[in-house]
């Protein structure tokens, strides 16, 4: 298969299939969670569960000072690669054009210089995250194959995108094809790893926050 053919496939059926698997996979995960149901809380409440749930979805984004003090690097690094990844994904003009063709909406992007820098920062941050995972006793103890798979499929799109943009490593067409394939890999793998957290975090924060709001306790 030539690089052109690969690229064409990756842009076409490859992407469509991957997206379909991603959407169906995530919906399936959502169903697997919700279908288990939850019992209503019969204890007399002090406040609103709904308010607690919604509030917690937002406020859990920030860490508590006492744990931040213990692992500031790990925490800050987590924000860096999350924000970097989102920035590169959503504010790079060619990506925005893709969203426009698929969803019909668009928004202003960041300059390619900034995106470029962010991509480098994101890759570095992800590498640091891996190093921390491999060297911290707690993280080593609780990590499994799934964590490393998730790491790989997350870093590959950023790396290959950077390499493609700079026409590095491989001929452009091939590099671009690999970039798209790495994105497709991420899409296909995500629903079956901890990457489900990208959606389920709202559910888990909601459930915890709902109980806290109902009971009138901090969350």
């Amino acid at each position: 298969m030539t690089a052109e053919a690969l690229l064409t496939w990756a842009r076409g059926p490859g992407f469509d299939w991957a997206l379909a698997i991603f959407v169906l996979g995530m919906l399936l995960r959502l169903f697997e969670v919700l279908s288990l149901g939850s019992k209503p809380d019969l204890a007399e409440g002090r406040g609103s569960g709904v308010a607690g749930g919604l509030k917690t979805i937002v406020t859990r984004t920030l860490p508590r000072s006492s744990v931040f003090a213990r692992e500031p690097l790990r925490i800050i690094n987590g924000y860096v690669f999350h924000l970097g990844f989102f920035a590169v994904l959503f504010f790079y003009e060619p990506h925005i054009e893709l969203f426009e063709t698929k969803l019909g909406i668009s928004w202003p992007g960041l300059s390619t210089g900034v995106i470029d820098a962010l991509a480098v920062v994101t890759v570095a941050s992800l590498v640091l995250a891996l190093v921390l995972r491999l060297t911290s006793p707690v993280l080593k103890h609780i990590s499994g194959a799934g964590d490393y798979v998730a790491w790989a499929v997350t870093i590959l799109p950023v790396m290959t995108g950077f390499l493609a943009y700079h026409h590095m490593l491989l001929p452009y067409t091939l590099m671009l094809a690999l970039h798209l394939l790495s994105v497709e890999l991420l899409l296909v793998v995500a629903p079956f790893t901890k990457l489900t957290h990208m959606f389920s975090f709202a559910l888990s924060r909601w459930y915890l926050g709902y109980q806290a709001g109902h009971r009138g306790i901090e969350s």
Partner: protein
Amino acid sequence: MSAPSVEKGIQFIREQIDAPIASFFSSCVHCGMCAEACLFYGQTGEAKYTPINKVEPMRRIWEQEFTLWGKVKSTLGLSRKVTEKDFEEWETLVYDGCSLCGRCSMVCPVGNDISGMIRKIREGFAVAGYAPEGLVGATKRAIEIGSPMGVRLPAVKAQIGHLQKDTGLDAPLDVKGADYMVLLSSMEIMNFPEYMEAVARIMKQAGKTWTISSKAFEATNSGVQIGVSDLARELVQRVVDAAEELGVKTVISPECGHAYTAIRWEGPNLIGRPYKFKVQHILEVLDEFRDQGLLKTEGMEEARMTFHDPCQLVRKGGVVKQPRDLLNMVANNFVEMKDHGAMNWCCSGGGGVSANERADELKFKAFKQKKSQLDELHVDTLVTACANCRITLEEGLEENEMDIPVVGLTELIADHLVQDKKEKA
């Protein structure tokens, strides 16, 4: 409780998995922050005490049975089933190394209620026969005798007798239609008789009617600590039946941590219906009296004091402001620990840990967290509102040769009540 079996254990764990728990496992990204909030990990440095690790057997069951990919892996023979060996290995993580303090649930970035999951996994461990001896005994006694420590009505009556003779106050039994029905923990009955006196004194001044039920005076719910909902339910039902039969307006949970959690939050869900009465912790009641101007106190303590927040009452119970408002009535020199209120650290003896002799060494290690909080503050007195915290703190302070006396908040308030000259003790 019928014959224990690992099969049943796994079944029980499986039954605990609901939508919230499935969402928690789906969201966990193994960030390790829960460990940083846990006093057992913090003071031992042993990664196995990482909170989310404590529920790993439950996670495996969830993955293998409730996710597509997990089911595929199972069919292909690629997943490790939960076996007896896991129960053996995890028992000390689930019981000895966790006081159900709930700090981990406060810091998980994706909002996992890890402490809630540990409470639920205990259901499986208990029924599989992998619960600590101390807790098994306590629960058995609670069911059969009515108290985890084997305290029977005569002991309660002896205390009431003393109250009547030494102070002229009364603790009336089985009064129909009383404003409040007071529960007592075995720890208080056995070790801290001053609690009952304090309550009597306060009720008298506030002009409220109160009673103790001769059929259901026990507040401690060992079923909750060991993790056997059936037993927890039976213990709650006794209180509910007595309270509803007497037609009291409010049941008061005493200075005991898990008693509050059991009767206030778990109770209605265990018996399957709301109560026909309210439930309040004694501090909530006292603070209401204070707010209504019913508590008249005199004098202020000059000693430097701080408050240890019982986990079940403050972090998990939401009774944060009340102890502070009450303390400020009688203390001129009250200082807060750096991590105070909802983020305070556990005494190290909650959730059944203090009833588990095997966990003593670990508990004393974990206590060093509280020690470091106190070392920073240099206080003369430590105030708290849970009998179990109190003993655990006293033992920990003793072990570390620290001379800080520990006192109960209700007792402290009662000591400052304005009294008639006649009644003065």
